[in-house]
């Protein structure tokens, strides 16, 4: 029973977003990169819990990115992942990333592939379902619970207006959302062990991005907040109707 956890290297949530090269590139200067929170808190931590419960033998990280993302991969080691594969390429779009991960998984055989529900930089929520499509595997999206018994997974996931409990035989691809597991802080032993865990670097195979980004723009913040006295809430309702036109 082997688990593959796909992780993305993203700017920390509090990053001030800026662009460069005529607004065609994200400006990485001075930015702290982290494991995409959903990949870490939910997918990776749940994989580690399954291993600790002796339901999985090995947790492997996979990441598509250049050498500068290795610090992020080591953080995954510090949390407890056993080994990692870095596909040495930039990640131009979701399909390219999914194709790389799908190709690797196809030749190396995994029972469970976990991803976070979306990345906090491109918010596409796409890579997991694309991997499932490439490998012809079932896909459970936005899962909040994942339990294993032998070859069978029981999951709870989000549907329109509620949740459902499903069963599915492995192999399987799952996108993980809040509820799946809790964030962990790496301990000193983990951090020490992280330095010597095996990180394999392999070249990209094939590779055909289907989309490209032409330009970026910052979303305008709200410029002024009109303050209304609590004794004049009729005025607020009036403004919501006549100025904002929302009621």
């Amino acid at each position, binding site marked *: 029973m082997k688990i593959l956890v796909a992780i993305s290297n993203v*700017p920390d*949530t509090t990053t001030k*977003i800026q662009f460069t090269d005529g607004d065609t590139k994200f400006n990485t200067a001075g930015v702290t990169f982290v494991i995409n929170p959903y990949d870490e808190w939910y997918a990776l931590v749940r994989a580690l819990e399954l291993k600790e419960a002796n339901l999985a033998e090995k947790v492997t990280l996979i990441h598509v990115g250049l050498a500068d993302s290795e610090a992020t991969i080591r953080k995954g080691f510090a949390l407890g992942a056993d080994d990692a594969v870095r596909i040495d390429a930039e990640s131009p779009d979701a*399909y390219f990333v*999914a*194709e790389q991960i*799908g190709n690797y998984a196809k030749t190396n055989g995994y029972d469970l592939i976990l991803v976070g529900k979306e990345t*906090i*930089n*491109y*918010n*596409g*929520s*796409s890579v997991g*379902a*694309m*991997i*499932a*499509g*490439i490998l012809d595997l079932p896909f*459970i*999206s*936005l899962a909040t619970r994942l339990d294993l018994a032998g070859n069978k997974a*029981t999951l709870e996931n*989000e549907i*329109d*207006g*509620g*949740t*459902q*409990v*499903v*069963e599915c035989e492995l192999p*399987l691809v799952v996108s993980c959302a*809040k509820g799946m597991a809790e964030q962990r802080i790496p301990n000193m032993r983990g951090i020490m062990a992280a330095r010597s865990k095996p990180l394999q670097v392999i070249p990209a195979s094939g590779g055909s991005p*289907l989309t*490209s*980004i032409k*330009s*970026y*723009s*910052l*979303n305008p*913040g*709200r410029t002024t*907040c009109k*303050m*209304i*006295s*609590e004794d004049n*809430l*009729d005025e*607020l*309702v*009036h*403004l*919501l109707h006549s100025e*904002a036109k*929302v*009621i």
Partner: protein
Amino acid sequence: MAILVYTEINKGRVKKSSLETINYAAKIAELTGSTVTAIVNNADAAQLEEMGKAGASKILSVKNDSLAADNMLISAALEQAVKAENAKVIVFAFDVVGKAVAPRLAAKLKAGLVAGAVDYPAVNGNTLEVKKNVFSGKATALYSINSDIKIISLLPNSFPVKLGDNKATVLEFAPDLSAVKSRITVKETKSNQAGGTIPLPEAEMVVSAGRGMKGPENWGMVEDLAKALGATTACSRPVADMHWRPHHEHVGQTGVAIRPNLYIAIGISGAIQHLAGVNGSKTIVVINNDKDAPFFKSADYGVVGDAFSIIPKLTEAVKKFKANQN
């Protein structure tokens, strides 16, 4: 050539996000000189008529009770519909089903996907260019879809629904799914929608409250305000984590991301993780007793003061306004 739109029926209605996507596809059809074919499962005559009014020229009407259980089956049915209609553009809503099906279909068809578009695309040669939010709502990126077949999933509530007097031609469509081996069994479904309430992702008005409410016993007044407005209630993460309110009401980066027309935040400080889930709202009203709460910087209207006195007064003001409207 047609624009294919994936649509759904939920709780006896054509989903609002589906009507939005039909409208959206009609606009793309206009831009590209093509027509709109919608595909839907288990729709009745009235629902098919409504889809026509939204702008579908043709509807592929599927009757299959097992389809919804597995996105693999939906994707396979759509692959056949794409072929039958020679569709070059496929439109989804960026909702729970769209997020599971559109990327799988994209991988199958090697079709470029923009997930969460917020505007109409522009045609540029053989490409479509379309904007979507990136960096959790802090920025917008202009994407170019460069593949032969193109898929766009539209962020719900990006455009208001418009219905005209168009009538669609309805064709029965029976995809052959015998080759698809679904392994997913649904054991149980749990609804978290009280009767009559609009689900959060579809809601045009949301009243949300945080720790400032001091305890779950004080939510009655939040619900009263929501009821007066016709809004759906939501909450901040700490409130869901403390089990004051159910988890499905949690809006923010880790919870549900929403973009209603009106978002009223009461007793929520406005942490960046909360803003990431709500900053797409058209108008934001913040009510907080701390005049330095960061949320005021991201609000359109602010009221400083005690929530327990403001909420009932605001509810009365809304009721008075509504009474005068009638």
